[in-house]
């Protein structure tokens, strides 16, 4: 590593930054807690602020409309510790993930083909754009009418709803990739497989990660609607049960459990995935001096 730095200084990239740092003011430090702690602190702070606002509202409105935050949280705890929480959550998550997986498996190849071959683009553009405007609720109704109250209709409704969004994101991403790299891969006779895996897909990583995030959010919204239509398990079903007994506390508590699960997926799994697949990119430092 020392050698690398020496080489960089020799070619004048690091050299100026080093001398500037020592000649003018010392660089601003990240504060006594360090960067990571500050980041976590701000995230927790924003959640606490939300809970505080909720508490204020609960003082104004009757508890049947807005229950107290801590009463709702104790309801969350009782949901998680008693009953079949993991079965209900598991059923919903399975529907989200299977539907999402189906959409992904179709969208990635289709998006790449649309982005690289003109005639496929012309052919698939209208249905994809039309699909984007179709509300998830209508897909849910259509799929249940078609497949009945089966798991298949849940998977299909999720997949069909998020498929246009995923495809558009990957299609547009493919159109913006570096054409010089494609020429390079042609000059070295790369196989079609190698062009996709080594040259095109890595340039789509940011688009695919963004698509995963949007896609999961959208999938959860659709699956709850499907479950409300008469499924006998899942988070959507539990929310309907809360609604039927007019228990605002139960509705909110179930919504919160799902939010927590999604946050864990977002920050745990997707965040981890993002760090793995973007290791090659130096960190962007835009605003600090």
């Amino acid at each position, binding site marked *: 590593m020392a*050698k*690398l730095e020496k*080489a*960089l200084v020799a*070619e*004048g*990239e690091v050299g100026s930054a080093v001398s500037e740092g020592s000649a003018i003011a010392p660089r601003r430090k990240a504060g006594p807690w360090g960067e990571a702690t500050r980041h976590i602190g701000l995230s927790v702070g924003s959640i606490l602020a939300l809970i505080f606002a909720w508490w204020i509202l609960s003082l104004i409105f009757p508890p049947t409309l807005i229950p107290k935050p801590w009463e709702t949280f104790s309801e969350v705890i009782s949901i998680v510790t008693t009953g079949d929480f993991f079965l209900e959550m598991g059923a919903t998550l399975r529907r989200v993930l299977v539907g999402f997986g189906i959409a992904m498996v179709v969208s990635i190849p289709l998006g790449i083909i649309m982005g690289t071959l003109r005639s496929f683009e012309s052919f698939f553009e209208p249905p994809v754009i039309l699909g984007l405007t179709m509300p998830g609720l209508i897909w849910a109704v259509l799929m249940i009418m078609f497949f009945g109250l089966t798991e298949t209709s849940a998977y299909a409704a999720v997949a069909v709803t998020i498929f246009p969004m995923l495809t558009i994101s990957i299609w547009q991403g493919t159109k913006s990739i570096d054409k*010089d*790299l494609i*020429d*390079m*891969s*042609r*000059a*070295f*006779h*790369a*196989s079609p497989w*190698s062009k996709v895996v*080594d*040259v095109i897909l*890595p340039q789509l*990583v940011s688009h695919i990660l963004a698509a995963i995030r949007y896609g999961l959010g959208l999938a959860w919204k659709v699956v709850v609607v499907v479950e409300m239509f008469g499924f006998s398990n899942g988070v959507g079903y539990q929310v309907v049960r809360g609604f039927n007994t007019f228990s605002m506390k139960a509705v909110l508590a179930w919504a919160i459990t799902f939010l927590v699960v999604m946050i864990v997926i977002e920050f745990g799994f997707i965040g981890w995935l993002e760090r793995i697949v973007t*290791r*090659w*990119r*130096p960190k962007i430092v835009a605003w600090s001096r």
Partner: protein
Amino acid sequence: MAYVRVEKAVKYFPREDGTDMLVLDTVSFETKEYGITCLLGPSGCGKSTLLNVISGLEPLERGRTEVVSNHQEAEKEEPRLGYVFQDPRLLNWKHVEDNLTFALRGMGIPKTEWEERVHKYLSLVGLVEFRKQYPLYLSGGMRQRVGLARGLVIEPEVLLMDEPYSKLDHLTARNLREDTLEICARLKQTALLVTHDVEEAAYMGDRIVILSPRPAHITDIFDNPLPPLERDMDDSRFIQFKKKLLQSVLKLIKKAEV
């Protein structure tokens, strides 16, 4: 061992209005064996197009290009061409060494040779310690060296270089030119270098082919009187040769402006 022969190459580019623009006007020349041939001409004259035609990335309307190789006649396989671009054009998400194996895989080199070749050519460009590094953590000059190693690692009959120094700063470019010259001499590599820089052509080229402004045709071909490793930019013989090239190019530009 190998050389490139271009015979009466004619190439058009379609214009927006549907007419054709003549880019290459019956271009004919041969490169040297065992050495660097420079294609020298003003910017936009069609030098890079000529390189793309030779590499097969673009077709010709008339005429032909051919890589003549003793080796190739024996085995009847397609000639191998290495490419070094103006920008390094590396796969930034792959380690330095994987950028080289990407080329080896594409050219169908057996896997058993990869390790040895990667080591050999990264050593030649002086980057063997950086084989596990990602390109974006290297300087511009080092990235261009990786590009050179990638062009060489497939052991091409001919190495095609498209203005590989024009985006580097003066000192880095000078250093890399010197190393490229030495490496090509040591490997007895046939190479074709496109440039618009007269001094670079005089320094790098064993033969210099001068192209006119568009439509490109060949106006002069010079052979360098100095052997590759005896070219000193301050030597009077070098300066004399450079002047000769410069006059030939200036004559063209003046004619084009009149």
